[in-house]
Structure formats: C-alpha cells, structure tokens
C-alpha cells in the first residue's frame, strides 16, 4: 500500500544512516537527544518490571550475552561464543575481553552469575520462568561461565538476547538504591538520574563496545546524552516534537497521515516487534466455557477494518498466537485455522447456543488503557452488537488487567457471565505460549494435559525443525479451540516520529531501539 512505500523501514534507515557517515556529510558528533514517550519506566531493575517502556531503557543501560540480528536470530554479543553439552543441559559461555561496567570494574563471569542468581533469589525476577529450568551457575574463570539446566530448553539462547536477561554488574550489590537511584551495566549509556514520572537522563558510556547488535558503530555512541522524557499526551508529544523540545516521539495516530503527507518529520515504523494482540476468554464458566461463544466473538469482529480506522495501516492483521517475526510465525499456516470476519457464522453459532435478538449474550470486554485501544474496543463493541453480543467495555491499566483476567478465571463463587479481553503480549520466542497456557498459565485460564504436553515439548526440543513442528501443533490447538485468537500486530509504541536532524536511528527486531548510530545534524 502507498503508506508502506513512503516509510523509512528499519533496515533502510540503517543504510541511510551509514550512507551519511561514509559520505562524511556534515553531522556534528555529540548533542543531547530527547526521546518523548507516553509513560515512564517502572524500574531500572530488569527483574522488577515487564513493560516495553522499561525494557527499551534497559537496552540502553545494560547489554546482553546474546543479541538479536535484524531477522530476530540470537547472535553472539557479550558472549563471544558458547558450547552446549551433549545432553544439552549445560551451556558454557566465553565472554568478551576488556568490557567495562559503568563503574569502571571489569565485566566478567561474576557479573553473569550475580545476575542469574539474583533472578532466582528470594525476590525472584518477574520473568523467572522464561529464564528456563536453570539449576546452577558456575564461574569457570574470569571470562568463562557455565549455566546448567534441569532439562533441555529450546528458548534459552533467544532469552539471553532479550532485555529480561540484561546483565547486571555485580558491583550493583554495593551500590545503594539499585533499580531506583543506581543502575550499573555495560550498555552504551550510563545512568545520570531518574526523576520518576518525568525523565531518565543517560550519558554516553565512553568505554562501550558493540559486538552483536545490528548497527554500524562498534564503539561508543555519538550522542553526549540521551534524555528519555515522559509526555503522556499524544498532542503534547507531537507539539514538543515540532517545537524541537523532543527529537523522537510516538505521534498521535490521527496525525500520522499529515506527517506522511510530506511534512518535515520522518516516521520509523518497527516491524517484527513480536507484539501480539489477541482475544482471550474466561473459559472457566459460561458463556465462554462453550467454544461456540468464543468462536462467535472471533467471527463477529473485524480486525482489518478496526486497525485501518484507528491506526491507518501502520500495522497488520495477525492470524497467529505468536506475532510476526517470532520463530514459528506463519500467516498461511495460521490463517487456515483462523476466524475470518463472518457475522452470519457468528449469528449461527449464537443461535445454536440459544442466543438471539431476543436475548443477547451479555458479557464484558477488558481493554488495556491507552494507544487508542478504547476506540478499537468501541468498534468491536459495535460489531459484536450487530450479531447480538452485548459487551460492556472496561478500560484498565495492563497490570490490573492481568490480575483481573486471572481473578475471573479463578473465581468459582459467581454466576456473573464470564468476560473476554483484548490481551497484549510482546515476546521474542514461541516460549511465550508456555508462560501463557501451560497448566493454566499466567491467567489460570484454559488447561488441558494434552496442551501441557505439547507445550513442554516446545521447550525441551532444541532442534529447529522439530521445535517448529511442535510449536505449530500448539498453535493449531490454541486456534481450533479458540483459546488464543490473534488479532493484529504490532500493537503499541512501534511508531517513532523523528525530527529531520535525527539520523541513524533504527529499531531492531522485537522493538529494541538502537542509538549507536544516531547523530544530530543541524
């Protein structure tokens, strides 16, 4: 479509950026770049939050053992190389030499051990399960560390490329106020200050070296400082962008057409974000304990139309339970089990269940606040009404939503109709499905031994082909049973508007913004 063409896609942006560098066009090194976002980070501690907002800042402060390349494949990074034991139960990483933590201490095996031990400590990481069945970390020498697993774990290496596995330098143990006032890593930027709700100020890490990130610049960043500022109001962000109070910001969706219509701002729209927005239901009680009700909702709603209205073609329909760019995602494969917009089919299903114009199906739709999702919800609400599903909307914070969905599934003491929700997850690997559905999963939702077995398989298999098959089995199961119905991707914070003087900004796979190549021209 027209829109796509005019977009500066990440890869091309990179080329563009580098082209300038090579041509040596006037580009002053240094300067402060202000990045305006709708919300603040929750914590500087990669074990204490799961929000994209937080992760994107961790990326700048910390580094990871592995790193995703442009296609989202995990490559060596802080870990120059590694060996896997025959049984696939122990990984031995040899680390890069001469890397320094922000406090000047040398980065090494101790830091890796510190990080992993911490993740499994008495106040464990929120994403502990995703680390895998780790049983021990062993420092072989300064630059060699061995991690042993209880069982083989296919998603182990990808995880080590994700922000959740950010390496936290051991020196943080002494540092006071880790996570709020201090954060020592090996990333391209050092923490200067964090004023909660207002801004995070980062400064150039002169000792930084890049090994695996898909950027041109292997050394320290060109910028002097990176200021990540919170500006909740889209209009305010846009105005800030236009007046130069900010260099990069997520624009209001309704203004995207204008921006594309050749005004000075540039757009970067991330792809392969791993973000998945999907229908999910309270399967523990009526009406959604009946697959027909779940299918009816899926058939009654038209994501294509909705996202076109709300996001103007900056994202696309996603058929799969795991988003584009993630291992195992295959639109053709998923589509055959999917639920295309078909209100008549929906009405049939409802009729079979005994619902009709006379007695509509009453339920409630939970939606995560922000990102114009409430408009999306209103569209779906209207479409559902057409087929005789009366859904009231409750908009809430994502944390609350997670809790409420789980609560609804666990509650047995009520006769109130079950709810359904427009759930949102961004992940780098199909392992998310294990977190979401194994033994009921994060939401104590749908549970069956058959599914559990399939999910366990996706974890244990390490051979790509075999794993792909297992993953597709899970996908088929989830979709035919209408447990996890994909809607669209990406879903949030994937559009970046740039001032013209910003060059070399790129967003890697799974929504990792990278500033290594960024320069401010005048």
């Amino acid at each position, binding site marked *: 479509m027209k829109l796509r063409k005019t977009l500066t896609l990440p890869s091309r942006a990179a080329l563009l950026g580098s082209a300038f560098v090579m041509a040596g066009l006037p580009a002053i090194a240094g300067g402060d770049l202000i990045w305006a976002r709708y919300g603040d980070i929750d914590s500087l501690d990669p074990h204490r939050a799961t929000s994209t907002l937080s992760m994107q800042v961790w990326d700048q402060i910390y580094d990871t053992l592995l790193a995703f390349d442009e296609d989202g494949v995990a490559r060596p990074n802080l870990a120059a190389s590694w060996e896997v034991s025959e049984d696939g139960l122990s990984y031995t990483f040899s680390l890069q030499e001469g890397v320094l933590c922000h406090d000047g201490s040398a980065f090494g095996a101790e830091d890796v051990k510190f990080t992993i031990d911490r993740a499994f400590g008495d106040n464990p990481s929120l994403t502990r399960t995703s680390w895998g069945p780790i049983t021990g970390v062993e420092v072989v020498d300064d630059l060699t560390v061995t991690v042993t697993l209880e069982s083989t774990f296919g998603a182990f290496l990808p995880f080590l490329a994700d922000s959740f596995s950010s390496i936290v330098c051991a020196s943080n143990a002494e540092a006071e106020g880790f996570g709020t006032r201090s954060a020592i890593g090996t990333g391209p930027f050092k923490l200067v200050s964090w004023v909660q709700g207002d801004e995070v100020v980062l400064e150039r890490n002169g000792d930084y070296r890049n090994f695996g990130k898909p950027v041109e610049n292997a050394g320290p960043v060109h910028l002097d400082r990176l200021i990540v500022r919170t500006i909740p109001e889209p209009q305010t962000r*846009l105005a800030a962008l236009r007046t130069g109070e900010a260099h990069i910001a997520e624009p209001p969706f*309704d203004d995207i057409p204008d921006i594309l219509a050749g005004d000075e701002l540039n757009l970067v729209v991330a792809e392969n974000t791993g973000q998945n927005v999907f229908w999910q239901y309270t399967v523990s009680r009526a009406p959604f304990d009946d697959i027909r009700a779940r299918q009816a909702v899926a058939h009654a709603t038209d994501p294509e139309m909705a996202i076109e*209205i709300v996001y103007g073609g900056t994202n696309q329909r996603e058929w799969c339970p795991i988003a584009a760019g993630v291992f195992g995602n295959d639109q053709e494969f998923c589509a055959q089990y999917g639920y295309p917009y078909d209100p008549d089919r929906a009405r049939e299903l409802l009729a079979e269940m005994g619902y009709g114009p006379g007695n509509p199906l009453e339920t409630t739709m939970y939606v995560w606040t922000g990102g114009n999702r409430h408009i999306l919800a*209103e569209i779906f609400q209207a479409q559902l009404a057409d087929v005789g599903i009366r859904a009231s*909307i409750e*908009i809430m914070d994502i944390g609350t939503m997670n809790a409420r969905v789980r609560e609804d599934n666990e509650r047995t003491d009520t006769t109130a109709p079950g709810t359904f929700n427009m759930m949102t997850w961004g992940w780098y690997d199909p392992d998310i499905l294990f977190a979401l559905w194994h033994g009921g999963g994060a939401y104590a939702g749908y549970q069956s031994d058959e599914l559990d077995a399939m999910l366990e398989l996706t974890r244990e298999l390490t051979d790509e082909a075999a794993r792909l098959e297992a993953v597709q089995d899970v996908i088929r199961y989830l979709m035919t049973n209408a447990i996890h119905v994909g809607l669209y991707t990406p879903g949030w914070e994937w559009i970046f508007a740039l001032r013209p003087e910003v060059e070399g900004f790129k967003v890697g796979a799974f929504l990792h913004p990278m500033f290594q190549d960024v320069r401010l021209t005048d």
Partner: protein
Amino acid sequence: MSAPAEPVAAAPVAPRRAIWALLRSPSGAVGLAIVLLLVVVALLAPVIAPYDPYRMASGPRLAPPSWDHWMGTDQLGRDVFSRIVHGARLTLMIGTIAVGISLTAGLLLGLVAGYAGGWPERILMRLVDVVFSFTEIVIALACLAILGVGLINAMIAIGIASIPFYARITHSVVLVEKNKPYFEAAVAAGASHLRLIFLHLLPNVIPTLIVVGTLGVSTAVLAAAGLSFLGLGAQPPQPEWGFMLSSSRDLISGAPWMMIFPGLAIAITVLGFNLLGDGVREVLDPRQRAR
C-alpha cells in the same frame, strides 16, 4: 465551594410567591431556564438527537461542524451533537443520584449530631471535619480504588465524598435553630424528640439544604465529569461529557470541536445549577436579597 453556613430563610415563603420571586431575580430566572432546558433535552433526547449517539459512521470521521452535524463528528464518525444530547441524561442522573446520597446521609448525620449535642456530637462532627478536610476528590479516589472504575461507582463515590459537606452545613444550621427560643418553647411544651427533630428542626433546615443541594448538583456534575475525564468514571461508549472531553484531548489541534462542545455543555449545566442555587438563596434569605 462556597455555601451559606448560616441558615437562610427567616420566614416561610408561599410556593407561588417563591416562584415569582425566583423569576424576578436575574440569576434565578436564567438558572431555572437552563435547568429546565437540560431536563427537557434529557427527557426528549431520542426525539431531539438527529442520529443514534452510538452508531458509527453516522457521518465521515472527524468531520468539522456542518449543517448535517452541528457539532461535528468524532473519531468513529458518531454525531457529537446527538451524543451531547443523550449525555444530558447521564448528567442529570449523576446530579440526582450523587446529591441524593450525600444529602440524605449528611442531613441525618447533621440533624442527629446537632440535636444530640454533648460528646456524641463532638466526636461525630470532629470525625466529619476530618473526613471533610480530605476533600471530595481524594475521598472519591479512595472509593473508586475500592469499588473500581465506572460511572455508577463514580456517582456513589462522589455521593459518599460530599456527605461531610452536607453534614457540616446541616449541623451548623441545627445549632443556630436549636438555640432559638422557639425550639426551647417546644421543649417547654413537652415535645418529644421525634417531634422536636422532625416538626421543629427539619422544616427550618430544609431551605438551607435546598440551596446547598442545588449548588451541590453543580459540584457533583463537575466532579463526575472530572473523574470521567481522568478515565475513572464513564466507560465507552457512554456519551458522558467529561469522558467525551478526555477522548478529545488527542485531537485538540485536529478536531477542536470535540473538546469545545462537551466542555460548553458541562459549563452551561453547572452554571445553570449555580445560578439557580443563588437565586433560590436570594428568594429564601431576605438578608441576601437586601444586598
């Protein structure tokens, strides 16, 4: 919030005379007109509204005010005018429910405390004062933190939140009335507690509460709009004015009409009740009229 701490209305005013007096006072007349208009609009909403307030694509999306859409359309092409017209119902509901709750509870509290006197009064009113000093909005927030968001919850929250206000006013009036000889005369006549409270105190408290209640509606409407604006009140697709305002924020520059009209609606409604309240006070309180 300004309200008469001292009781209004020295002498009773016959209903018919009251209406006339009200219509003669400029604020009263205008206020009454606005409030009546609001009521009419609310009652006849389906008749007045040219479109279904919920139907999408009643027109093009984000169309500026035009002959077809007097107040333009929103992101989903819904007719803003129709939504505002239907919003009047919600607004009226908010006003009555919230004030209903706080007025009844506050009245009883104030009456009992004021009449009982002694330590029950002291403790009760001290408590009320304390809660009062938290201010409505914070109490409302606390309530919503418990009840969860939603328009009905917001109404309840606001109702609860302003109980102390009404309790204090009732109490202050009761104190004044209680020390008037007529009350003592009734005691001397051997009147029972109930008789004293409901025949002698209550009628003399009512006028003040009519005034405060009218003004209270405006406060309630404002508060509810505020909560909805913050996203704690009305939920989509309810055409609640405060909520419409909040969803207009992203479009201030692109579609200002989405911000201007709901705001106007709230302002005019609140103004109406404020004026009416002032008017009623003038009518009921000769001292005020002298000014």
